[in-house]
């Protein structure tokens, strides 16, 4: 039998949702940069470890987003004998489209079902979609690639433990989670999308293969955060004016000829000087307007919105992004409260 911690199984009916995106980790960055190849078998392994973490703390139920690869089903296939779970596992009743709509639909359903916590496996893009569908449930984002800022590279087992501690109420979400910033994206007066890390205006005609790797295409961007250890657009912010997720500001940066240059890591292995013509610190609700130019807006590293010469886009910094559980802080608090002591 696996060792179980003395948590309060069954006293609180807790549910954790898992949204694992089988499509992440296979985009063009494997070709134009040196991004990691992250196959779905490894995602199955991570989910298996997450389930064991959730089970150890006594989560009552896990709800999976169904996906075309069957990540949840395959993870369960490996959990037999000493690894068999007491936690009940179910799947959301929803159609699978193979697209990012699946993550959005799953997040909305989990929100409706009032799950106590959602664990996401994917990149910035996956988390952005989940945040669109559900802003009140605490998230535990687990990164499945090298090009991410929002989700942390965290071990699946500890992510599962932290999510379970929050879901069961043994550590309150108010203590464990931080409210993130976001960027609201308004096209011709209608809010159509959001970004969690950055919204980039690109000198492009098409969404195409989505990734950003050519700095000459970047006109300007708005970012909620950026630190020197980050990768992508956030790396530019990190070198220019570091902003943590908790800082009550954002930044708008225009690229082009100027006196300021920073060395940035635009992608895995893509280190380059970036020339900046201007930048400005943003307060919450400040707006940046893009109008009358053919461009593409990339959100959180993926080209997403094609803009025509007649369109107007407003990018606005907002304080009401998703709640994100700090895995390290949560486990520290649990340890200090003696929750890991068996005797």
């Amino acid at each position, binding site marked *: 039998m696996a060792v179980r911690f003395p948590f309060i199984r069954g006293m609180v009916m807790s549910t954790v949702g898992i949204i694992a995106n089988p*499509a992440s980790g*296979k985009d*063009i960055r494997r070709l134009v940069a040196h991004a990691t*190849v992250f196959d779905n078998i490894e995602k199955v392994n991570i989910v298996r470890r997450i389930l064991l973490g959730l089970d150890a703390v006594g989560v009552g139920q896990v709800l999976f987003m169904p996906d075309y690869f069957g990540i949840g089903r395959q993870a369960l296939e490996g959990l037999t004998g000493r690894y068999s779970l007491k936690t009940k596992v179910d799947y959301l009743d929803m159609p699978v489209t193979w697209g990012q709509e699946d993550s959005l639909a799953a997040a909305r359903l989990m929100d409706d079902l009032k799950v106590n916590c959602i664990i996401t496996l994917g990149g910035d893009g996956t988390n952005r979609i989940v945040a669109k569908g559900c802003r009140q449930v605490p998230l535990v984002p687990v990164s499945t690639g090298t090009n991410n800022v929002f989700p942390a590279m965290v071990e699946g087992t500890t992510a599962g433990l932290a999510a379970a501690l929050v879901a069961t109420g043994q550590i309150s979400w108010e203590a464990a989670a931080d409210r993130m910033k976001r960027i609201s994206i308004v096209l011709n007066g209608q809010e159509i999308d959001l970004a969690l890390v950055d919204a980039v205006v690109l000198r492009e005609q098409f*969404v195409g293969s989505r990734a950003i790797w050519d700095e000459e295409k970047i006109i300007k961007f708005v970012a909620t955060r950026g630190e020197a250890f980050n990768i992508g657009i956030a790396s530019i912010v990190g070198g220019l004016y570091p902003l943590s997720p908790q800082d009550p500001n954002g930044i708008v940066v225009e690229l082009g000829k100027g006196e300021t240059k920073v060395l940035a890591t635009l992608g895995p292995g893509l280190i380059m000087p970036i020339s900046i013509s201007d930048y400005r610190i943003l307060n919450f609700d400040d707006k940046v307007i893009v109008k009358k130019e*053919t461009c593409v807006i990339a959100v959180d590293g993926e080209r997403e919105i094609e803009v*025509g010469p007649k369109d107007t886009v407003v990018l606005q910094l907002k304080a009401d992004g998703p709640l994100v559980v700090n895995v390290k802080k949560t486990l520290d608090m649990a340890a200090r409260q003696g929750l890991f002591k068996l005797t």
Partner: protein
Amino acid sequence: MTLSKEKLLELYKKMITIRLFEEHAVELFANGEIPGFVHLYIGEEATAVGVTAILGDNDYIASTHRGHGHLIARGGDVKLMYAELLGRKTGYCKGKGGSMHIADMTLGFLGANGIVGAGPPLAAGAAFANKYRKDNGVAVCFFGDGASNRGTLHEALNLASIWKLPAVFICENNMYGISMNQEYHQNIKDVADRASAYGIPGISVDGNDLFAVFEAAEEAVKRARQGDGPTLIECKTYRWRGHFEGDPTVYRSEQEVETWKKKDPIPRVKKRLLDLGVLTEQEDQAVWDEIRKEIQAGIDFAKSSPLPDESELLEDVYCD
């Protein structure tokens, strides 16, 4: 990626040509005018056009049994194609090959192929020739998710990777190997995952998005020309028709087909061309009308062409 108005219209016209060519092939087959089988490319146009758009004169293509789209995208002559489909002497193979053996060496088109998975070794060989001759050419190999289980693909990937051959392997993953859903014939869903076994990049793109395919192929071809070796690109797409004309398609639901028809690659390109001011509705209508005439001219040419004479039966069987 920035494309000129001329290039955008050229790619759009090629997609429409493929669509109309295949739609008319449906009618010709239903009327009993095409001997043998035809496997149609309707719904997958963005993949062929996106990939071939960046190829040059020294480049090769190894195609599949579903090869009409590849040849049209490469610049094939629809008159000669229809003549071949109808078994006429004026066809690409003098009417003796039919749909699954159309080849045009002047275009570096190594041929459609009646054998699933026969293209990869041909492409590896062609890429070896490019490298040996130092002509900066690349070889592109189209294959399907079914062929991704064939040993021929794996042997070709292995050779291409160890010799760093200038090859690009394009998996047109339309979810079915004949009638078998991918779920039942392999334990992965992304054929791109196969690449890691050979130490080469493998990426998945939306095969119904012309520009996504173009960008991925452009980078892969650039990599191949630089001497960095092969790439595997998986284009996720869907064939609207059955595996072959006459296939009752009992293995898939109408709902699934309708879902994919909503992802039709042609209107997606048209919408962006309208947004960019590259095309007007009126010009679009003119484009379709012009291509319809070209297609009809091809069919008329084929129908008015003679059948091969019996005396030619044994010609072209062996090389002199």
